[in-house]
């Protein structure tokens, strides 16, 4: 896990890129003036607000991150179709359930990303993170972290846990190297 950015003038590369893209989208143009303004904003705003932020892990493998994003987008589409079929089908046959997934991740940023992906994909909504603490990075001895998820139609608990760990958690561990 790396917290410090490579260049001090660019503390959050990904957020700067996002700011750049959002500015261009908001103005709906790629003229030279807007690009210059977007570059200035993308560099100045992170510098100005960086004293207010807590340090967060940086993406170490951008290529893998992009591939993971595409995989998640594909999963969102397929999972939505499945959920739509489940909703329209008979309600009495559904067996909802709460499942506790043990996590290998320890820092709060990757856990947040994992919880969001789990919320958007296959019939699951992440509900709670145990043990509850304000800041997961502080403790000297990191405890085992659990993610409580609610499943719309629970058939095989172990298979679900295995899917989440392999499909969504392992790439995140690679991306943030933690």
């Amino acid at each position: 896990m790396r917290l410090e950015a490579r260049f001090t003038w660019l503390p959050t590369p990904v957020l700067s890129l996002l700011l750049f893209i959002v500015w261009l989208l908001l103005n709906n143009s790629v003229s030279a003036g807007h690009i210059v303004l977007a570059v200035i904003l993308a560099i100045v705003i992170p510098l100005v607000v960086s004293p207010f932020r807590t340090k967060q892990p940086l993406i170490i493998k951008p290529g893998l991150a992009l591939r993971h994003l595409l995989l998640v987008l594909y999963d969102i589409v397929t999972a939505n179709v499945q959920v739509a079929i489940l909703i329209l089908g008979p309600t009495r046959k559904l067996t909802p359930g709460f499942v506790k997934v043990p996590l290998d991740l320890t820092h709060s940023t990757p856990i947040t990303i994992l919880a969001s992906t789990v919320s958007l994909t296959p019939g699951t909504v992440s509900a709670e993170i145990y043990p509850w603490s304000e800041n997961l990075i502080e403790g000297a001895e990191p405890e085992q972290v659990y993610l409580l998820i609610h499943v719309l139609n629970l058939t095989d608990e172990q298979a679900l846990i295995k899917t989440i760990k392999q499909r969504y958690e392992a790439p995140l561990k690679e991306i943030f190297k933690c």
Partner: protein
Amino acid sequence: MIEWIISILLLIGGSFVLVGSIGLVKMPDFFMRLHGPTKATTLGMASLLTAAMVFFSTTQAGLSVKEILISLFLLLTAPISGYMMIKSAIHHKLDSIERTKGKDNIEDDC
């Protein structure tokens, strides 16, 4: 041709939004109701906004891509608001239906 694409995207989006709302009314307890709006509605909105993007790109001068912003925003915020709602539901100890498995996985928060 483009009219066909817009129509199909609009119909897909509208049906997903409708399915999300049907899930909201049909499901028996809060935790199951949450699944419809957080997932189906998000994809429905993304599809509708893509249709709007294609529509405005063809009917008006120049490319119009700013509808992506709303899709992106909804995609980013849907899990967070869902998480906040399920957290407050657990805090208020809402009942889940009888056949829910693994209810003892819920721990009491302080």
